[in-house]
């Protein structure tokens, strides 16, 4: 099966969202991340791997340890994806609001 590896797939899973929240405040090793979950260590590793492939997590070698930290640029992609669509509706609704604020019934 050809798995999608993009930010949207990354945040579709609740464990992966929890991992992102953990590393948002500080860089952590895989072990430190896993210690926050009841899930088996290999499962957490798999999630970390997916997040890394999607570039939401970045690896950093520090001595013998590998630390994972959060990549805020990538999470912005999620917001950017629908922003033009949102803006289009926002413009329309702003217009609607202005027109109706000035609306005077004929009768």
């Amino acid at each position: 099966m050809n798995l999608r590896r993009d930010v949207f797939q990354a945040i579709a899973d609740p464990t992966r969202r929890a991992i992102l929240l953990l590393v948002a405040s500080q860089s952590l090793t895989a072990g430190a991340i896993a210690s926050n979950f009841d899930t088996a260590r290999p499962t957490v590793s798999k999630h970390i791997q997916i997040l890394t492939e999607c570039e939401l997590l970045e690896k950093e070698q520090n001595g013998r340890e590998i630390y994972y930290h959060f990549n805020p640029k990538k999470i912005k992609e999620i917001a950017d994806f629908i922003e033009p669509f949102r803006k289009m509706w926002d413009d329309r609704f702003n217009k609607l609001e202005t027109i109706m604020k000035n609306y005077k019934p004929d009768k």
Partner: protein
Amino acid sequence: MELKTKIHAEDGKQELLITREFELPLELLFKAYIEPEIVEQWMGTKVLKLENKNHGSYQFETTDQMGNKHGFSGVIHELVMNRKITRTFEMENANFGPQLEFLEFEKLTDDSGDHQSKLSMHIVYRSVTLRDQILQLPFAQGINMAHNRLQKIMNTIK
């Protein structure tokens, strides 16, 4: 800053939710959806037909900057005054097929009185792929417009 218009589009789902709060009484918000002359103004389209009733239909026509006409149409499944409109929407000749729209209008009460209202628009597409394509349309159009502008500038130069 809090965004007035919010879009909730979950990954892997063929639907999305648009919500917007208006500084307008509910009745005025609803009127903007059923009065053809008002729809024309804020949607930037010509209204050829708008039957505001159960089992009614509507037809819009928009002329773009290049002078091409684009049709939009659908049927109104249910219309309850000042409460809801359930309808289909389709861009004609666009291969996207129809989408189902549930529009709900509600009054918001706060300290300043009842001059606020909220619209929730729940749109269901035929597939996840279609939804994602349609979501990206305004982005693609933006690029097109930039290209057209560039083209115009280039034409004046040569």
